[in-house]
């Protein structure tokens, strides 16, 4: 397919192409959308273990005596409450309360925070944080120093454990450890974007092709498969994890996106706080809700949603949910309409198709010890 703008490639590009991945433009990056097949890869992650190249994600490091104060000032969640070795999902907001990005904050030391941010937003995020930096801290654009590989699924731990001396069972969900993978330094975080147990590892780009291959070898006995962004999307949608540009963007707030749990209004001043306080007082006008299609059809991103025949909102993400054998989606609706059990209509190619608001997440994994 002809491209006028050169797409960026991760250090694993050659590995994807050699394994027959179908490559697509994803926010300016040439990324694998699928290898063997989206649904097959999806089930592999739910039942066994899948491997994802997420090296397109950005990294920003904040260091210095007031690193914590800066991170706390630019994010919605309470960075001050993190322990060393702990990670936290958080929002970067504009003053008006809309999202600059959704990010992961890792506390490495008292004076060092490591942020994982969305690929397409990384330069914008860096400028946003740097502009807000009236603290004794340094903001460092670190994306070129890291490749990121996600090992996800119930057998992710046993796969990765073969390649690291770090006792992975001792890392809790949303905690991380600095250690080695395949003999080279790695940041190993028990995080993910699939709704399954798993790890995201940050390694030097040059080392990533070797580690990728060793992970495939280590997981062979478990049926590991490389997975593309297609499966990543259906997995995260079933788990109701937000995707920037869909559920969240510059004109949606955390309260509207049902992400109030990442907002700590009591932690002190932060960018966007005043707007959120006001919105909390007044109540949100629209809310993100899940729906299941009842009629035949799939409500996809951008499709209009109607209540009682009148346009009321729009779909932010929609797809077949391979683990549920249903067609599901997320949409914004007026707060007064956003209740489970309510019948709605999704305009699928100009035809109204019946759907129903349901509780979320659509999929939740069974808790294991």
């Amino acid at each position, binding site marked *: *397919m002809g491209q006028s703008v050169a797409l960026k490639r991760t250090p694993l590009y050659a590995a994807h192409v050699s394994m027959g991945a179908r490559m697509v433009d994803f926010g300016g990056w040439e990324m694998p959308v699928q290898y063997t*097949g*989206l649904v097959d890869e999806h089930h592999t992650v739910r039942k066994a273990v899948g491997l994802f190249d997420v090296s397109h994600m950005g990294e920003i490091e904040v260091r210095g005596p007031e690193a914590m104060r800066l991170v706390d000032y630019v994010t919605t969640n309470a960075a001050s409450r993190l322990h060393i070795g702990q990670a936290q999902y958080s929002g970067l907001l504009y003053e008006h309360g809309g999202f600059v990005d959704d990010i992961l904050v890792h506390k490495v030391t008292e004076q060092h925070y490591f942020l994982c941010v969305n690929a397409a937003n990384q330069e914008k995020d860096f400028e946003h944080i740097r502009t807000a930096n009236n603290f004794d801290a340094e903001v460092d654009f670190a994306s070129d120093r890291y490749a990121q590989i996600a090992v996800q699924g119930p057998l992710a731990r046993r796969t990765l454990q073969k390649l690291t001396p770090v006792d992975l069972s001792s890392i809790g969900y949303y905690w991380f450890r600095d250690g080695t993978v395949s003999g080279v330094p790695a940041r190993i975080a028990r995080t993910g974007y699939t709704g399954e147990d798993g790890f995201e590892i940050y390694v030097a780009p040059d080392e990533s092709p070797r580690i990728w291959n060793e992970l495939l070898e280590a997981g062979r006995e478990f049926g590991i498969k490389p997975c593309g962004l297609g499966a990543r999307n259906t997995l995260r949608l079933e788990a109701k994890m937000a995707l920037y540009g869909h559920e969240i963007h510059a004109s949606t707030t955390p309260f509207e996106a049902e992400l109030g749990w990442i907002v700590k209004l009591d932690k002190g001043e932060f960018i966007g706080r005043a707007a959120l306080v006001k919105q909390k007082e007044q109540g949100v006008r629209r809310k993100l809700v899940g729906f299941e299609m009842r009629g035949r059809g799939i409500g*996809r991103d951008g499709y209009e949603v109607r209540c009682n025949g009148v346009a009321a909102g729009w779909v932010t993400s929609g797809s*077949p949910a391979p683990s549920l054998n249903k067609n599901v989606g997320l949409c914004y609706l007026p707060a007064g309409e956003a209740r489970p059990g309510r019948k709605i209509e999704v305009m699928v190619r100009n035809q109204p198709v019946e759907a129903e608001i349901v509780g979320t997440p659509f999929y939740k994994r069974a808790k294991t010890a």
Partner: protein
Amino acid sequence: MSYPEDLRYTKEHEWVRVAGDVGTIGITDHAQKELGDIVYVDLPKVGAHIEHGKSLGSVESVKAVSDIYSPVSGEVTEVNEILAQAPEKLNQDPHGAAWLVKLRLSAPDEAKGLLSAADYQAYVGAES
């Protein structure tokens, strides 16, 4: 997969097999691979008049929905009923059992303007 010599192809990745005044229409192996796991196939009803270059239905995969543009003009005489129950057949046998519709052609010569197997192969080879 090789592209059968007896089909004619479009740059939108449909094919047609002409036998007398009957044209059988499908989508190519390249198209099914691009779409991935197919979940719905929407086709016209028997008796519908289809014009060359116009949409005759759609194919929807987990990832996306895509229009099918008819390579030829005519009246629908048969619709492949298998696909309503087993849309995944389109991923398995796009040039054979998973044909979409048959038309009674109103202008059989239209197919002559379409790509040969070799030309289509070269086209998708260059595209991907």
